[in-house]
């Protein structure tokens, strides 16, 4: 028992440290942005240069010009902190899982915690080698919000599962939901950035849109799998694979909106609409996690706030 308590405590400490490290990273990103702006730059900074994306851009998505070296090194330090924060969150997830003696996604807090880790990892994997460095600060902010909300509002001490959750399918179904959710998050941030840049005159051919697309292409099948695994589990637990429980309904809505997004992408002249649909799909996903668990009574309500 003492060992369990220790691990849970360690997990909590790791989460707090990760919050601190990621906040610091965010501050550094802000400083880097400020330095880049006040550096010997040409004229007023434009978020999206008119006439397309510059071929070569630095890791802040802006033209690699004479931005001060300090800005670049600050950005690099921020990235190092993000990596460190990610490692801390992953360790926190690991400790939590060991403390509970099961997969660490049995309640909303653990879902948020593991989700934060997944978003950070996805973010680091996907942003490598792409001209979308400007997203880094935003994604760190999203991770901070998710982790912060999990710690302050959703926190629950390590505990056993209610019987109906005690199934192998919990591991598979929820893991797939977390993974696709993390990818949807990266996709939504990139899509939002793309939408903002469109207003600045960027065309369809935008590295942010490319990033969003490649993320969605992976996330959508995983989400499909999560829904199917959920249906199989529901059949095993309640005797029907689909019952239009609010959670199932919103999973379905999310799926349909992302399907609409993918179809709209290949409809001529609907690229902006397609982006809006992707954002709508993400909002449906968020509502499914927060709204349905908190406000709507249903079979999934035991998920534990």
């Amino acid at each position: 028992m003492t060992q369990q308590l220790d691990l849970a405590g360690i997990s909590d400490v790791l989460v707090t440290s990760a919050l601190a490290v990621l906040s610091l990273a965010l501050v550094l990103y802000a400083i880097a942005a400020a330095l880049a702006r006040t550096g010997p730059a040409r004229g007023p900074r434009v978020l999206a240069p008119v006439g397309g994306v510059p071929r070569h851009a630095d890791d802040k998505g802006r033209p690699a010009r004479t931005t001060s070296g300090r800005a670049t090194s600050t950005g690099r330090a921020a990235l190092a902190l993000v990596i460190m924060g990610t490692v801390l969150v992953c360790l926190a997830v690991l400790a939590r899982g060991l403390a509970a003696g099961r997969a660490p996604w049995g309640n909303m807090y653990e879902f948020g915690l593991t989700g934060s880790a997944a978003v950070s990892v996805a973010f680091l994997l996907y942003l490598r080698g792409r001209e979308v460095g400007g997203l880094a600060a935003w994604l760190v902010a999203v991770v901070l919000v998710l982790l912060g909300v999990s710690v302050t509002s959703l926190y629950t001490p390590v505990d056993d599962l209610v019987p109906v959750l005690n199934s192998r399918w919990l591991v598979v179904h929820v893991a797939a939901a977390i993974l696709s959710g993390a990818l949807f998050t990266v996709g939504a941030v990139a899509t939002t950035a793309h939408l903002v840049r469109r207003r600045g005159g960027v065309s369809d051919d935008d590295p942010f849109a490319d990033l969003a697309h490649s993320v969605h292409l992976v996330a959508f099948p995983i989400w499909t799998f999560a829904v199917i695994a959920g249906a199989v589990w529901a059949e095993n637990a309640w005797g029907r694979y689909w019952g239009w429980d609010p959670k199932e309904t919103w999973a379905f809505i999310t799926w349909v909106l992302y399907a609409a997004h993918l179809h709209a992408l290949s409809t001529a002249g609907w690229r902006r609409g397609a982006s809006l649909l992707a954002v709508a799909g993400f909002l449906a996903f968020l509502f499914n996690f927060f709204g349905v668990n908190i406000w709507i009574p249903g079979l999934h309500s035991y998920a534990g706030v």
Partner: protein
Amino acid sequence: MESQESRASGAQGVAEPPLRGLDRGTPPKPPSELVAWARWAWRRLTAMRTAVVLLILLASASVPGSLLPQRGVASDPSAVPIYYREHPDLAPWLDRLSLFDVYSAPWFAAIYVLLLTSMTGCVVPRCARLWREVRSAPPAAPRRLSKEDGYMSGEVDEAEDALEAAARHLRRRRFRVVRHGDEVRAAKGQVRELGNLAFHLSLLVLLVGVAGGRLFGYEGRVAVVEGSTFANVASSYDALTPAPWADLATLEPLEFTLESFAAEFETEGPRFGEPRGFEALVSYRSTEEGEGTFAVRPNRPLDIGGTKFFLTGHGYAPELTVRDGNGDVAASGPTIFLPVDQTFTSDGVVKVPDARPRSLALQGLFLPTGVEGPEGKGVSAFPGLVNPIVQLSAYTGDLGLDDGSPQSVFTLDFTDLDRLERNGEPWRASLAPGQTVRLPDGLGSVTFDGVSRFANFQVARDPGKEISLVAAILLLGGLTTSLAVRRRRVWVRRGDDGLLEMAGRSLSRRPLPPDELMMLAAAVGLSGGTDERRKGER
């Protein structure tokens, strides 16, 4: 439908009217207005943008069902009546719009039927076109290779050898390859379209599976008290909702006895009282599977010949013996009390129409762990059986059982009942196991003998289940294939000036695999090549 031939029109369904069959055999006069109209409507329906609009409609139409109470959705069967009581003006209107049965509403069905039609009309002609394409050779190289998505050029020592090497390399990489004069033409990734077709058709299969359950399946609920036996015939169920064509006369012949039921609850910490484990030990007898015992637990149903019994709930059944005014036992044995809260405070009634001189009815509240609550009212502090208490009030009069109208066993019809009183106060009693209390006016006595538990079983038979599972696997496989495989063409051409050019074109929205041309260049010994990747031109 996700990918499109990048250079073809965006809305694929429009490209080719699939109604050609209609005007087969008609003379070459302009088609009648009706045909033209039908053709126009079909083209509209099968256009990609129609599919997108229908998808958005489908998503929006699903929303009200999650916000309003729904009939036939498992969580709370009384949600709709409660809503009716709380919103007496609004509810009938919502009901008229089928908003309490959204997922079986005609307008909901209209959306998905249109969507499936649109989808089929879009995908099938497209796949027919693709099939023709697959059987023909990879197409000739465009005149200006440098305008393609990927392009490399450079000098080679032996152009002919290089072309051979390129063909070999591409074949090894599972391209379909033809040599034609000075060029090598290759194509790969048609399986993407197969996946696309599988994905979309799987939705039709899924519809068949869902329909199977909706037309031939049934769902039932039954509460079984410890020690009693359930026989699988329609009349044994507490609730049974059969599909229109379900055959209830031939239910799986079986019976089972609930030998014991065990529940564990958290006894410490902030989650005090939360369930930790349930187990219903049953012994079953079936003509098909013989006899046996089985521990039914959450996520572990009893499955006999495809009929599954799921443990979905439990509660207490206090054993009350009622003696009437003549001293005869008028009622005895366990009575199911329905839990009303997390600590299993439970409600129940005992109807004793045969008590003499006057028939009796008891209304009771059962507290598994009774403690003194606020205002002296008894409450249950824990869902487990620590200090069982049953609190009773009693009625006499006409129970309304003889007029033939159906009545719930869990409620009393108070119209012709009088509450028993003592000294002008309503009579109440609070009993612990083993205690007996006398009713006022010499009407008899009640003994609280002990407590049994009951288990709630959800019973389901869905003959379309396996079809739906196959559809789901097909759906996932098709989707993954159609999103992961990149369909593309590669050309290698020898120029007159001894220059070797190679180019790749992506036929989906995703770029060419990085390094594909580089590796091809390395395989043919292209030196000093330049890699020019173009990303635009979608």
